[in-house]
């Protein structure tokens, strides 16, 4: 075989670029008020159909009834006028499919995944569940007990404890301070009546979206959806209360005491921005440089330079309301204070100095280049279409997004850092042995120590 020349000393030049465009999809609002977003993806003989209800998310949880949205979503498929809970589950699972219902802060959802040939049964079932759930008393009781056990279990999960404490601190007085799954106090007072009431007021066809992706013909799907979902007289959905948390007065340190922990779960965070905020795209670029990828500043600092952690990341969580900006890492306890100071250092630095041209270029080309990788599966594509529906984004959003990245300059990154990062009014949460942690944070900010259970403040 002839020796072929390669030059190992420099990165090899790329071949010719192959173009990528977001796949075409159908988006139509039916006369019954339901919006359908559908696209064909035929690599494997599967379909995914998801009904997304943007008026039924956790942001509608009433005060004192935290967890109502997720409990209602969890109960909606536990019985209809035609079938009981097990019959519903078995009808899908016998076909190799799955049915899952739930709620996040923004939406309630019912999703079915099936072999492509069973699409009709799936659609029929989703329509039946949405239109005629019965919420049997026994199922309400069963799910409440299961939920309470889950809350107990999470009370010992250091990562969940850290997230929960952070939200309680930075969103005090707003619905985001609560727990989506509810608390020991709220779940017992949620009864069948409150579930039924939530369902009636929030699960509306009008404004909901059916996302269908897979080995299907979008036009066929559209006809089937029109037939399956009957229009009913509906009232307007209630408007959720505005989420306007008061910024902290300074750097607040909250230690959740977990004696004997092998490590410390560390979080730093404050409120971020809504998903629809005009700064969202430049903020994604900022975050990519700060803590959004392996070679980001925070990961390189905490993991590779200081060996404090297996990995550290930051993110802006986009929601209908202002989701959090947060930095998270599991760090060795003896370095937890130092790790928090390094994070603060990186937050201050990126607000004071322009990022390096190379850093911006890397972040941009990573975000543009990696996009096709993130739309490989039926689930990937469904998630993208869901974002269009829930956040009212235009059809060309993802193509525009790739171009908009080109327009982000270093000055824009600095400007959005100054507007949306606030390292002087930030919550620092550390879940670990308080005795070892307290001295390390004395110089960071005012310290409060919490016991994980009961959730009382110790000092």
């Amino acid at each position, binding site marked *: 075989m002839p020796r072929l020349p390669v030059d190992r000393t420099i990165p*090899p030049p790329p071949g010719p670029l192959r173009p990528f465009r977001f796949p075409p999809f159908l988006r139509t609002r039916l006369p019954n008020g339901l919006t359908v977003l559908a696209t064909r993806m035929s690599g494997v003989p599967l379909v995914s159909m998801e009904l997304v209800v943007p008026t039924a998310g956790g942001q509608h949880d009433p005060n004192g009834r935290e967890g109502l949205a997720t409990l209602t979503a969890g109960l909606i498929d536990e019985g209809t006028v035609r079938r009981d809970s097990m019959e519903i*589950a078995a009808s899908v699972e016998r076909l*190799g499919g799955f049915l899952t219902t739930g709620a996040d802060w923004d939406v309630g959802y019912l999703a079915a995944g099936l072999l492509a040939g069973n699409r009709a049964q799936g659609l029929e079932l989703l329509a039946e569940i949405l239109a005629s759930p019965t919420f049997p008393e026994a199922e309400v009781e069963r799910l409440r007990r299961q939920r309470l*056990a889950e809350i107990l279990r999470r009370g010992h999960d250091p990562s969940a404890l850290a997230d929960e404490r952070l939200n309680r601190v930075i969103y005090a007085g707003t619905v985001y301070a609560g727990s989506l799954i509810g608390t020991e106090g709220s779940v017992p007072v949620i009864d069948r009546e409150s579930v039924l009431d939530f369902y009636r007021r929030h699960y509306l066809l009008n404004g909901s979206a059916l996302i269908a992706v897979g080995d299907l013909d979008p036009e066929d799907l559209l006809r089937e959806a029109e037939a399956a979902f009957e229009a009913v007289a509906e009232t307007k959905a209630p408007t959720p209360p505005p989420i306007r948390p008061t910024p902290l007065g300074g750097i607040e340190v909250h230690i959740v005491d977990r004696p004997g922990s092998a490590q410390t*779960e560390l979080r730093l965070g404050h409120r971020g921005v809504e998903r629809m905020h005009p700064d969202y795209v430049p903020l994604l670029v900022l975050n990519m440089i700060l803590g959004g990828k392996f070679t980001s500043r925070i990961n390189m600092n905490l993991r590779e330079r200081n060996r404090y952690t297996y990995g550290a990341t930051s993110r802006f969580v986009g929601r209908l309301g202002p989701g959090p900006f947060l930095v998270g890492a599991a760090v060795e306890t003896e370095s937890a204070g130092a790790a928090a100071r390094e994070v603060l250092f990186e937050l201050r630095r990126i607000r004071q100095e322009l990022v390096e041209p190379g850093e911006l*270029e890397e972040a941009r080309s990573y975000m543009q280049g990696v996009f096709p990788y993130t739309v490989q599966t039926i689930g990937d594509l469904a998630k993208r279409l869901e974002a269009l529906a829930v956040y009212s984004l235009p059809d060309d959003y993802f193509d525009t997004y790739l171009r908009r990245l080109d327009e982000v300059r270093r000055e824009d990154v600095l400007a959005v850092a100054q507007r949306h990062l606030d390292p002087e009014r930030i919550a620092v949460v550390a879940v670990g042995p308080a005795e070892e942690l307290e001295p390390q944070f004395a110089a960071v900010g005012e310290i409060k120590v919490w016991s994980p259970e009961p959730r009382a403040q110790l000092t």
Partner: protein
Amino acid sequence: MPDINLAFERHTLPNGLRVVLHRDATLPLVTVNLWYHVGSKNERPGRTGFAHLFEHMLFQGSEHIPTHEHFRQVQMVGGVANGSTWYDRTNYYETLPAHHLDLGLWLESDRMGFLLPAITQENLETQRGVVMNERRQRVENQPYGRAGERLHELLYPGDHPYHWPVIGYMEDIAAATLEEVRAFFRTYYTPNNAVLTVAGDIVPEAALERVQAWFGDIPAGPPVPPVSAPLPPLGERRVVIEDAVRLPRSYFGFRVPAYGHRMWYAADLLAAVLSGGKSSPLYRDLVYDRQIAQDVGVHVSPYEEVATCMGVVTARPGVEVEELEEAFLSHLARAAAAPPHPEDLERARNRVLTELYSGLQKLDTRADLFSQFTTFFDDPGGVAEEADRYQQVTTEDLMELAQTCWTAEQRVAVTVVPRKSS
């Protein structure tokens, strides 16, 4: 499998590197997936965690690629890179925009052929620290985190290579030396102990030419030392461990025939019969009807020497562990005594099929499967036959599996109970 593109061609370079090429131009992506047939089973007691620590060292650069440049080069063009270590193998991959195929081949061939100059004490110390934190994060600071490794310690004797955890024990991670890193590289990271799959928007002929250009000159290494896996019969064993948890949880372990064996597929299918979905007998009985369990599952791992079947069941508050375990085990006993209900079998067969299809959607998963079947069975065509292997399992196979493997004498159990507060 119907309608699914699993076309491939295979080649072997003169240095022994086996190459699988799979063309799928659906998206402008290419993935470079490299399996080395070495994992924690090639370690020895007192030197555990080495294969995994070594995987970390492989991201610290090589002769022509400075420290931290591997990830930077990949991310700069919009690629993703990672690696993972398991009992039987270690894999590495880069998935890149298709026009950057050469970049992936450059990075992987440089660390296969030119790693040694980049192995420094400083890089070793950094990765030792990172891995120790990884162990704390994944094992020691996780509720129930130690149970899985305790189960393997019981299920396999001390000199069996599945006895110790892939991530290793803390004191062994602390003890690894630079010279051991070098020796490990020379012994196992050779073209003749590796499989390279290139998949995506490629022209196979041109891709093969590039593979030859980058990998062709790397010299073959000596044959890899065999692994000894003595497996004396088990007697029932059990441990109870205390942990910072509120809900007790029981883990059961059984040995089942190795991945690839007909009875392995029987075990995996039977696991789906018993616990795959809300309408499965275990979930329905323990979680739904009697409400004594918070969750329940049976899983079978695809190991190469012998496979582990693990059952996990978590108690509801106030439920005695004995009651929970008895209820769980009664379903295993029933599986040995009678064939499954036809509806449960139909559900499990369809579920396995759906999961197989679903797993084939991602290019990097598909490439990983080609590498896996070539590494374990020297047969990339096995990817397309996987569905049939499940369909060929009979109800007699399922009963035989339950009768021979799920006996009390061959069972180990780890029960995690809440730590008594002082």
